[in-house]
């Protein structure tokens, strides 16, 4: 099982990844420019003589410029962010959900319940729980926590959502075509064995998913 960094597994993760790439490039460009400027100044204006330099106190146009330019940059980042947040929210409101999975977190394991209650997967100390998802489908997760706050994080989704005891949360994703097994974990510190709250996410073709569901149903029935 290969659990290194996953590719984006959902359409929403693709959106988030695009924002990440844009913001990362912006940050690196600004960082290189500003740190470069600092390095340049430090070398260019190092003390060469005891001459007192010009005692410049202000330059209003320059000050306005270095206020406006960052303002424009963050306005652009804000816009990019909210176009993507809307896209992520849209699927949450979508009617055409193919599958609803109830996810329950407790100290210190996960339980995944598939519709009609016939299939339940609960992790143990020896068996890491597996969340099986059909490719090319819209999945809604209903989130429950039993004891303390947990957080349902699938790095491949580029998404996590905190889970509060006494309050059901939910979110939806459009699972893509990336067949494979990926990592999932609890991101909110939840006590003694927090680090053991790992799970596996296995994306399978839709046919295989139905077959898997049937097998588990018959196991549960038998």
């Amino acid at each position: 099982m290969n659990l290194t960094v996953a590719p984006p597994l959902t359409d929403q993760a693709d959106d988030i990844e695009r924002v990440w790439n844009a913001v990362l490039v912006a940050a690196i460009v600004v960082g290189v420019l500003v740190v470069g400027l600092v390095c340049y100044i430090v070398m260019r204006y190092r003390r060469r003589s005891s001459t007192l330099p010009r005692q410049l106190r202000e330059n209003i146009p320059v000050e306005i410029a270095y206020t406006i330019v960052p303002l424009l940059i963050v306005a652009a980042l804000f816009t990019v962010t909210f176009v993507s947040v809307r896209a992520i929210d849209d699927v949450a409101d979508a009617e055409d959900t193919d599958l609803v999975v109830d996810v329950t977190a407790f100290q210190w394991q996960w339980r995944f319940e598939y519709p009609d209650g016939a299939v339940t997967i609960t992790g143990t100390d020896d068996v890491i729980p597996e969340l099986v998802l059909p490719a090319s489908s819209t999945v809604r997760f209903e989130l429950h926590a039993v004891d303390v706050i947990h957080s349902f994080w699938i790095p491949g989704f580029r998404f996590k959502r905190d889970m509060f005891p006494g309050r059901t949360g939910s979110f939806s994703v459009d699972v893509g075509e990336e067949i494979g097994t990926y990592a999932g974990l609890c991101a909110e510190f939840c006590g003694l064995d927090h680090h053991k709250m790992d799970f596996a996410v296995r994306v399978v073709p839709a046919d295989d998913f139905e077959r898997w569901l049937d097998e588990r149903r018959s196991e549960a029935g038998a």
Partner: protein
Amino acid sequence: MTTIERPDEDQRLYSVDDFVGPPGTLPSGLPRTLVGWLTTTDHKALGVLYAITSLVFLAIGGALAGIIRTELAEPGLQVVDEATYNSVFTIHGSVMVYLFAVPFGFALANYLIPLQIGAPDLAFPRLNALSYWLYVFGGAIMLLGFVTDGGAAGFGWFAYPPLSGPIGSPGLGADLWIVSIILTGTSGTLTAVNVISTITMMRAPGMTMFRMPILCWNLFLTSFMVLLAFPVLTGALIMLEADRRFGTDFFDPTQGGSPILYQHLFWFFGHPEVYIVALPFFGVVTEVIPVFSRRPIFGYKGLVLATLTIAALSTSVWAHHMFVTGQVVLPFFAATSFLIAVPTGVKVFNWIGTMWGGSISFEPPMLFAIGFLVTFIAGGLTGVMLASPTLDFHLSDSYFVVAHLHYVMGGTVIFALFAAIYFWWPKVTGRMLSKRLATVHFWLMMVGFNLTFFVMHFLGRDGMARRVADYEPVDGFERWNLVSSIGMVVLTVSFLPFVVNVVWSLRQPPTAGADPWEANSLEWATSSPPPEHNFTWLPPIRSERPVFDLRWMNHEDVSATGTTEAWTARSDHDSRWLPLHPFTDDHDVEPRADSRPDADTGATTT
């Protein structure tokens, strides 16, 4: 461009030593006995005590960080078990934030505010002593958790219920932690009252608000943020303790309580807290850069305005810590979080503008100020990334956040802290520190710090959650964790030259003189170390650089006081307002406070 050559003999520069006498003329104002130190209400002594105590907590927090990095160097549990690990990272974070970073800001406030505004002490010296001792005992109570059954608190420094509630954390260590934060929070609130009173009421003649050093401005605005934020935390923790011990259910969801309410209260404190930690250190850098660039601070008023904007916005960004709860309004808190980057960027450009065209010397304080600048730019940029909810969905509670917060609250603080120590050490002790050792210290720290924390960005992006005692060997995290742990070793070693430097320096005679750096602000206008009640004499204050104006008083094109004659006339005028002993060789002369000029007419009544 007007440049001024170093003056020939008749154009010589004046020195503060010309006015206050050579080193050793006045006795140090610090206590001489143990009882003196334990009972002092003097702002300088309490400032030194605050600094030493917070550095002790830095050492404790650093040792705990050493345990964390040793444990995480490779997969598996080798050094400590989970329970101990959880206590260790909780107390590491709590010590660093509550007992090291904020109190070192108070050390700066204590020692420097009266000296920089020309006052003899803080407004309420006994309240100040009370604040200090509340802090010491509050801190000790937190550490006592380690010797209780069940160990110290192990719920992270934000103590989210229900995990921090009576069922989630039944041990006594959790109660000690809560009581500790309540005490130190109260201590901070009292200090804030003291700082605001001192700055509004006790400035010397001529020291208008817009002639104050930026450090004083920052400590002033920080204090307002403390008054807004700390009582909210103290209140939330009293509610939490009531849940734990007195049967209330504020935060217990099984009884209709609300865990999310605690998060709102905590972060309403927690985000201003970030700026409460940072602003005093921004102030330090703003003091250091002009001195070693030989330029006035560029855009003083813009800088004050930026600080005001940060203080105002910092009270409305808190929920960006809660983007992944699904229970906060994303656009509002994202907008304010993005916006706060603008005044923060303005500050960076103020510092750059000050150095631009300057004459930069690389004395130790300046080295560390530049180190601060680079670290701060890196932390600021990841801060902008984390203002985006879209990215927080992935990055929140990951090692990316750990990297970010160690850049903004660890790196910037530690670099600015050493800028402060190297800068004011001659003022506090009358002795210089070795430049060579300081340079070694700087480069080791620069390499060690970035090695330790930069790679954490990669870990977070790859999916490593914060606050984990262990990770699986299959996760691909081994390489960066090992690099980070090696960086921690370098970072630890970097403190050695500093310790050697301090020990060496304290064995030298106190010959630094009043103003060894050719600095700007008033603390350099008194002897090193300053005498009791700080000043026997003050120069006229006609800009934010009274000591610069003194040094260049015979160069009216750069000195805000005009000509030497004008400087002298202003000095005579101002000294009539000062309830001080004028400086003479004989310290027993009568004060001149009995001959104050009439406030309206300027006429002298005797």
